[in-house]
C-alpha cells in the first residue's frame, strides 16, 4: 500500500508565505509521497518561485511537481523549475521519474499539459497558425506523456501515476462553465494515459471542478485543485501491482 498525498493550485505568494509549509512538514506518517499538480504560484515570478521552494523544500517525503499556467505567466518557468530542483523537488516536464516509497517503486510521469477540449467538442489542427500551434502543443505533450508513462511502466514501477496541471477528462471539470472546457484540458492526454497504462491520473487547474472522474478506459482521475478539495491535500491509497487481487 502506498499513500499518495496530492494537491494543486496552492498559488503561493509573499502574502501567504509560510502558510502551506506546516502541511508539508506534517506529512510524515500520513503519506509516502507528495504530488503537486501545478500552479504553485500566482503570477509565476521568480520571487513567488522562491516562496514555493520554501514551502515545499526539506519535506519528510519525496515531492514531485509539475508547473501550471500561472507558473508560466512571467516567463520565468525555467528558473522556477530550476530552483525547485535545486531544493530536491522532482519537476516533471513531459518526462517521468521513479521514486522508492518505503519499498514500493512509484512511477510518475507528467508535465503541465495544455487544452484543446474533449471528444465531439475539441479543437482541430486546422486554419490559422496560432490555432494549429495551440493544438500541436497539446498533441506534442500528450505524445511525450505516453512515452514517459511507457518508460516508467517498462522500468518496473509497482504503481504508476500521471501528473498534469490541465485535465485529461471533462468529468472532473463539472462545475466549470461548459464554454471554457477547451481551455481546461484535452482528451489527448487521457488517450495517452489509457494507451500507456496508469493506476491514477492527478490534475489541478479547474478550481470550480469536481474531484473524481474516470477515463474512457477506466483510469481513475482526481482533480486535486486546492479549492476543489477544500483541504490542504487529498490522500489516495494504492496497492502495488504485484499485490493486487
Amino acid at each position, binding site marked *: 500500500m502506498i*499513500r499518495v498525498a496530492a494537491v494543486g493550485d*496552492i*498559488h503561493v505568494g509573499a*502574502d*501567504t508565505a509560510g*502558510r*502551506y509549509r506546516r*502541511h508539508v512538514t*506534517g506529512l510524515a506518517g*500520513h503519506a509516502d509521497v507528495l504530488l503537486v499538480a501545478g500552479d504553485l504560484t*500566482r*503570477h509565476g515570478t521568480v520571487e513567488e518561485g522562491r516562496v514555493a521552494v520554501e514551502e515545499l523544500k526539506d519535506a519528510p517525503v519525496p515531492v514531485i511537481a509539475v508547473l501550471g499556467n*500561472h507558473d508560466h*505567466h512571467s516567463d520565468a518557468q525555467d528558473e522556477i523549475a530550476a530552483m525547485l530542483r535545486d531544493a530536491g523537488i522532482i519537476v516533471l516536464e513531459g518526462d517521468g521519474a521513479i521514486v522508492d516509497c518505503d519499498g514500493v517503486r512509484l512511477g510518475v510521469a507528467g508535465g503541465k499539459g495544455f487544452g484543446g477540449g474533449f471528444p465531439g467538442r475539441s479543437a482541430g489542427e486546422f486554419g490559422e497558425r496560432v490555432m494549429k500551434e495551440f493544438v500541436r502543443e497539446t498533441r506534442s505533450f500528450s505524445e511525450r506523456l505516453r512515452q514517459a508513462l511507457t518508460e516508467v511502466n517498462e522500468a518496473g514501477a509497482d504503481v504508476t501515476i500521471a501528473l498534469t496541471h490541465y485535465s485529461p477528462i471533462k468529468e472532473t471539470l463539472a462545475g466549470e462553465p461548459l464554454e471554457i472546457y477547451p481551455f481546461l484540458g484535452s482528451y489527448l492526454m487521457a488517450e495517452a494515459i489509457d494507451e500507456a497504462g496508469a*493506476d*491514477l491520473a492527478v490534475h489541478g487547474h479547474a*478550481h*470550480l471542478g469536481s474531484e473524481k472522474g474516470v477515463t474512457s478506459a477506466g483510469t*481513475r482521475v482526481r482533480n486535486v485543485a*486546492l*479549492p476543489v478539495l*477544500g*483541504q*490542504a*491535500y*487529498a*490522500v*489516495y*491509497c*494504492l*496497492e502495488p501491482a504485484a499485490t*493486487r*487481487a
Partner: protein
Amino acid sequence: MTRTEDVPHYLVEHIRARVAEEAHELGVQVDVREGKVYLRGRVMSSERRRDVEEAARAAAHGHPVCNEVSVVSSREPDEGEQERLS
C-alpha cells in the same frame, strides 16, 4: 452610441478581465443582476478575497459590488478521509 459599461453582458467581462489582470484570480464568477455585481468563487486567503473585490470595484463603474467569494479551508485530512483505490 451605447455605453458598454451599462450593458450587463459587457460589464461582466470588463470586471472578469480586471479581476484576472489585477488580482490574478481566474476562477471568480461575476454576475450582474438588477444593476448589482455579484462575485462568487474560492480564493486562498482573506487578503486575496479583498484584492478581488477591489479589482471588481475598479471596473464596476459605480455599480454596487456584493462580494460572495469564499476563502478555501486548508485543514489537513484525517485518516478516515483517505481514499483507497483498488
